[in-house]
């Protein structure tokens, strides 16, 4: 039962804590949301914050389904939860189209009303809710990394 050193070393960090894979179908968004809320509560976030974290992950997953996979079913969305100290790090990972950062919108609510836009709210919400939201491409996968700290300050901020 003794692993090689590399295995043992790999095992040490025991990260990410929790991984959930679901098919790229919006019918699983509810489940993703419920698990995220549960995770956030278990990680010590208060109810309201857990609720919003679940929304942010819902939005990120929706974007993967709609944009990265262009609505194609049967692809996989992977969601990784990692608690480090008082920081919850959630990564939403896909193997679809690369995110074009220039298409990531910069929401201006004034413009929103005058232009009567119906999109562009998801990323804006994610950024409002989380302490940080970053997108990266690695090993042909898109990773949307969202971090939230469990402090009085960040509780106010969201």
């Amino acid at each position, binding site marked *: 039962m003794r692993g090689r050193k590399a295995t043992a070393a790999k095992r040490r960090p025991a990260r990410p804590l929790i991984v959930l894979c679901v098919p790229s179908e*919006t*019918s699983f*968004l*509810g489940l993703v*949301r419920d698990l995220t809320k549960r995770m956030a509560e278990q990680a010590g976030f208060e109810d*309201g914050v857990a*609720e*919003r974290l*679940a*929304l942010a992950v*819902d*939005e990120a997953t*929706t974007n993967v*389904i*709609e944009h990265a996979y262009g609505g194609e079913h049967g692809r996989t969305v992977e969601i990784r939860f990692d608690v480090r100290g008082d920081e919850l790090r959630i990564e939403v990972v896909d193997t679809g189209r690369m995110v074009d950062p220039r298409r990531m919108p910069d929401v201006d*609510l004034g413009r*929103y*009303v005058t232009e*009567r*836009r*119906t*999109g562009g*709210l*998801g990323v*804006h*919400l994610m950024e*409002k*809710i989380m302490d940080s939201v970053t997108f990266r491409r690695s090993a042909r996968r898109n990773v949307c990394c969202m971090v939230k700290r469990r402090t009085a300050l960040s509780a106010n901020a*969201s």
Partner: protein
Amino acid sequence: MNELQVETRHVGDVAVLYPKGYINAHTARAFESEIRSALRQERFKLVVNAVGLQYIASAGLGAMMGAIEEIREHGGDLRLCGLSESVLHIFEILGFHHLYRIFPSEAEAVASFRADGREDS
């Protein structure tokens, strides 16, 4: 699984929509089509009574944004009531409480349209 049911009740010339469940990218279409069906009936005074709404994601907010122009051009409005604390919080995060009038109760939301009427006459 209670995903989303939307019922509409007419209170005078005001259509009150009751979304029950949650509105996300999976269920937003059902919410949108209930709004659309009110507009097809030329009902432009809408109240969304969110008392049965567990949560709303941006897809649901987009559905409202997509209809508000047409509604207001016809002299109507879309107003809200019964928002839970967490749904209200989302509206506030987005500044949507500046775009939509939000009332504590359905009676107040419905009455607000009558008040509009009086101002007009």
